[in-house]
């Protein structure tokens, strides 16, 4: 320690201190930014996949997203969105977008799995981003009860407590989640497509996401314990049913009560 204190006035001391500070800051920053990228690019992709994906991209996506996916007036840059975003948007048919509007609609996928995989490989090669989740995270065999709690806190306000979807502002909506594959649900959570917020791995852990998917698959498989759920939309559809069917039955009985028998 004595030697160190004697050298503190050395001309190189300031530079050494600066270097040490930079190293610590850089190291901390690297740790902090690996939140989402820890498992990026684990699936093996060959150079030819990236190359063919680039060709597909130039032919189908570059009009809006720009050459090299750098973005244009019509579409955002895709550098750093990761393979998960491409697999979700292209795999559910939302991209290529049918027309401009408040929200991209789900429609039959325009590319087959092989093409989607190559497109994803190309976009993932542009910058690190969330990767396509591994099989065991989307198998729906997690803790459905824990998933239900996470779903009610984080998702139910937009997607409805029964995952039947719901309206947002100015023509946008949160879609119903029945029939959506576990992989796509996972990818939507990590990438935050369109107006959905991002739920990164430090917000909801990968196990938590697996639990949420398990919950959704459980309620989808078991149906509504109370009988017909009328779309699970709450007071709107239930009220309409009571007003039309319930009052209709009462009116029919009233007419029968007061009519003469032949």
């Amino acid at each position, binding site marked *: 320690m004595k030697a160190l204190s004697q050298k503190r006035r050395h001309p190189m001391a300031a530079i050494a201190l600066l270097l040490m500070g930079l190293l610590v800051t850089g190291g901390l920053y690297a740790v902090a930014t690996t939140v989402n990228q820890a498992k990026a690019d684990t699936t093996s992709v060959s150079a030819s996949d990236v190359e063919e994906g680039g060709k597909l991209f130039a032919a189908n996506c570059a009009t809006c997203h720009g050459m090299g996916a750098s973005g244009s007036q019509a579409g955002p840059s895709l550098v750093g969105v990761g393979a998960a975003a491409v697999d979700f948007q292209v795999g559910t048919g939302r991209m290529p977008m049918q027309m401009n509007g408040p929200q991209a609609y789900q429609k039959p996928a325009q590319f087959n799995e092989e093409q989607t995989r190559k497109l994803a490989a190309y976009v993932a090669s542009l910058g690190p981003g969330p990767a396509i989740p591994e099989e065991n995270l989307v198998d729906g065999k997690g803790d459905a009860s824990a998933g239900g709690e996470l779903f009610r806190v984080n998702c139910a306000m*937009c997607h409805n407590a029964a995952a039947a979807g719901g309206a947002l502002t100015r023509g946008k909506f949160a879609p119903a989640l029945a029939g959506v594959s576990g992989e796509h649900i996972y990818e939507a959570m990590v990438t935050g497509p369109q*107006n959905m917020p991002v739920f990164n791995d430090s*917000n909801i852990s990968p196990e938590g996401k697996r639990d949420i998917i398990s919950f959704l698959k459980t309620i989808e498989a*078991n149906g509504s*314990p109370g009988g017909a759920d009328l779309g699970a939309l709450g007071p709107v559809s239930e009220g309409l049913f009571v007003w039309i069917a319930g009052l209709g039955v009462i009116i029919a009985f009233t007419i029968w009560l007061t009519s003469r*028998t032949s």
Partner: protein
Amino acid sequence: MGNHSDGSPNHSGTVATAGQSEVAKFQDPGIPPHRLRLADTDPRAAKRAERQVALLFGSSVVGTVIFLVAYFAIDLGADSTIGTVRLQNALLGLGTAFAMLGIGTGIVHWAKALMPDHEVSEERHAIRTEEDRQAAVRIVDDIVEETGIKRRPLIRNTLLGAVALAPLPALAIFGDLGPRPDDKLAHTMWAPQDGKLKRLARDPDGTPIKAADVTIGSAFHVIPEGLNEMHEGKLDEKAKSVVLLMRLNPEELNPSPERADWAYNGIVAYSKICTHVGCPVALYEQQTHHLLCPCHQSTFDLTQQCKVIFGPASRPLPQLPIAVDSEGYLVATSDFHEPVGPSYWEREEHVRNNNA
């Protein structure tokens, strides 16, 4: 006037005279002729109606049996599934419906098809006679006279006093219905405790959140650190202190000068309780930066300090001032600067006290 196109004779334009208004007295048309039912004339139709009534009563018996079988025979033990519950629910409902409707419709059909249906007219009673009215007045007068309330003012005054005071115990009891909330609505758990700033924690597991965890576009549902460890009044505190945490590009936020240090690198925290009637506002659109309340569609713009841009809410959502502590965790630098949630009677007073 006087220009009838139907050819009726033109009289003077004056209103009808007294002689013209006297029409012939309204004739009572009487009861329409009695029409016999099929069951009244044809014994076979009567027999058929009888069988129909019996069938309806029989369906009620079947319904009751279905209910009892569903209740006792379907086992909701440990190895039952949601399917078993649904089956039992359906059978209980159907059984009850048949049991009730069978009796009801049976009785109505019996009355309509088989019981006598002669029309009977009942004369209206006279409504009131002058003698009855006089008799009632006499009774009241007698009562007043016999009690002697006019002659004995002492009795009258003490009675009035007693009646006036009698409700007071009730007032005392109602006053004890609960402690007044006082200024509980004006404060939340976010206030620093013993000089220690409260960390922001995830709902529901209560783990603290680092600033680096909140990537752009993220939305975190936040509770104060230590809420999960509470044993009493936990839900009351949660209802006031839930917060939505979001990160935008810092350029997109337009903070007013006095709120310049309330955000951290584009991370902002706002109360989740709608200022309209207190629903949780948590529908966050990460591209438009709108927050939508699902109850009455109040919409708040995050880029304008949660100003109301649509809907019935009248105030912006209160913002929670946040910073980062030495370990990188997000902390609330103070409580909300105004009471969260909808308006209440003493709110203005509490706002003044909070700012004082």
